[in-house]
């Protein structure tokens, strides 16, 4: 399959603009949020211009069209990730909400004394990893505080891989759920989800996969991964903000108590008590981001037209080139795998003598957008022995020339701050 980056770049209007006094934009912050192609932007405008209505309850033509767009998006998402049926796809605001949905549902199952695999108490354990985004750490800390369960975690090696050497001690019959990132948002590391999921299942635990950083970049199949839950977000995959997905196995979603209560998630409401709709609607209280869901489907269509296997192959070459260019810089340390093996398109690094904030400032002055700080992964930075890092993250519209410009910008920062540049 051919991959023509010049043609792809023409789809993204924002890449035509200049920043910081007329310099071309070099956008290397797609792990934060991606840019959007014209096809996606047109879908959003078209929905509001032609089909806008509330869904499920409007008894008129626009309501039918809006409902078809929203439920059609659910079908598209289900096909995209290999879900057994569209009802396994719950729309959320983002991955944080998707993870919180599961965590709060488990908390509710515990508080309501429902028993079963979702109820937690003292002696039960949740297992996460040290390389998680805060969104896959904090909800579990809060859940453990509410229920008396214990939080445990896999460490990371200094090479930025998951340290699975103590997996037998970590995943035990006490483990109720294992939650981990498919791909680290800092290190780019792609984790061996399948083998960990198999161990978790053998111990009777459930597996939740944070796929925010993988779904935009590679074909992801929930069954092949061995996940029970999987979350991803639209805005990192050419789609709009405000729309995310929680996929869960049907039997699990049926068993789980609701998270948010409100309109549309009910079956019957009386003043004393209510009963709830079957999934996915049980978890979709209130008016949902309808236009955003419809537009997410357009983003999936766009990525499908490009071809995720071709995209992945192109990014692999691009990341290999970028890693090579960065490795040549004296005093630069890449956090995470230095070779393009089992790693994605996010490259975080430190440079001796130049703080990440100062690095990003110098790069920004040259029109290069990167992220500086701890990237919502503070424990990971502590584990790697650094306070903060600079992250350049690539996507389908980035070029080898942009990776070279990054390397040159880093050297300029070294010169500016008078440290031993090369």
């Amino acid at each position, binding site marked *: 399959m051919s991959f023509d980056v010049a043609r792809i770049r023409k789809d993204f209007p924002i890449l035509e603009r200049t920043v910081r006094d007329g310099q071309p934009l070099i956008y290397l912050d797609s792990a934060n949020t991606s840019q959007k192609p014209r096809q996606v932007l047109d879908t959003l405008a078209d929905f509001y211009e032609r089909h806008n209505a509330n869904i499920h309850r409007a008894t008129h033509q626009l309501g039918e069209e809006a409902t078809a767009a929203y439920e059609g998006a659910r079908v598209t998402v289900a096909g995209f990730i290999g879900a057994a049926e569209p009802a396994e796809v719950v729309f959320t605001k983002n991955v944080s909400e998707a993870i919180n949905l599961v965590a709060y549902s488990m908390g509710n199952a515990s508080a309501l004394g429902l028993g079963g695999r979702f109820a937690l108490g003292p002696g039960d354990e949740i297992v996460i990893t040290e390389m998680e985004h805060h969104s896959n750490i904090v909800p579990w800390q809060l859940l453990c505080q509410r229920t008396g369960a214990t939080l445990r975690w896999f460490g990371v090696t200094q090479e930025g891989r998951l340290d699975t050497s103590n997996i037998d001690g970590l995943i035990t019959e006490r483990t109720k759920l294992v939650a981990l990132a498919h791909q680290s948002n800092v290190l780019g590391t792609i984790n061996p989800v399948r083998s960990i999921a198999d161990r978790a299942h053998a111990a009777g635990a459930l597996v939740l996969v944070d796929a925010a950083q993988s779904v935009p970049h590679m074909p992801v199949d929930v069954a092949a991964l061995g996940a029970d839950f999987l979350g991803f977000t639209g805005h990192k995959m050419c789609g709009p903000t405000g729309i995310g997905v929680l996929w869960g196995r049907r039997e699990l979603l049926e068993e789980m108590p609701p998270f948010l209560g409100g309109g549309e998630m009910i079956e019957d409401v009386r003043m004393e008590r209510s009963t709830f709709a079957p999934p996915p609607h049980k978890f979709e209280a209130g008016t949902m981001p309808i236009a955003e869901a419809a537009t997410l489907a357009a983003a999936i269509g766009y990525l499908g037209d490009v071809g995720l296997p071709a995209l992945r192959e192109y990014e692999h070459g691009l990341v290999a080139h970028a890693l090579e260019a960065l490795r040549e810089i004296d005093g630069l340390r890449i956090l995470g795998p230095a070779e393009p093996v089992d790693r994605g398109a996010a490259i975080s690094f430190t440079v001796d003598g130049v*703080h990440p904030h*100062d690095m990003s400032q110098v790069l920004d*002055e040259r029109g290069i957008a990167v992220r500086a700080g701890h990237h919502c992964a503070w424990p990971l930075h502590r584990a790697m022995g650094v*306070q903060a890092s600079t992250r350049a993250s690539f996507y389908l519209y980035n070029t080898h020339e942009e990776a070279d410009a990054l390397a040159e910008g880093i050297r300029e920062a070294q010169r500016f701050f008078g440290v031993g540049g090369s």
Partner: protein
Amino acid sequence: MRLESLYQEIILDHYRRPHHAGLREPFDTEVRHVNPVCGDEVTLRVTLKDSDAGPVVADVSYDALGCSISQASASVLADLLIGRTVGEGMKVNDEFLALMQSQGEGEPDEDVLGDAVAFAGVSKYPARIKCALLAWMAWKDATAQAMGERESA
């Protein structure tokens, strides 16, 4: 180039050779402030002493981890505030805060702010204002606590 307007030579000098750095004894109060956006942190100690004009800042010592702006800011702060009365120090603090909130339009008074006028360019970069303010917020917090302890003593 705009970088020079942000990173004035005074700032880079303070960054490379910070004044009054390190944590010293004795001290009245110690605080630790963190910028949750980037992880920059400062641990700052304040020592007050009595004078005819009221409590005076006898010492400000600190351990700062962070970017050039946040480190230089701590250095300039210690230079400016050591030896001043708490009342004067708070006025300088207010003036610096106003400068940081000026969106590049501020006209700093060098008589009040000294080397801190070099930070005027920072106010044009919203992402960096917190870096410049980190040590100042920590000093205000530590000093308010020290004053509180004096009043309750």
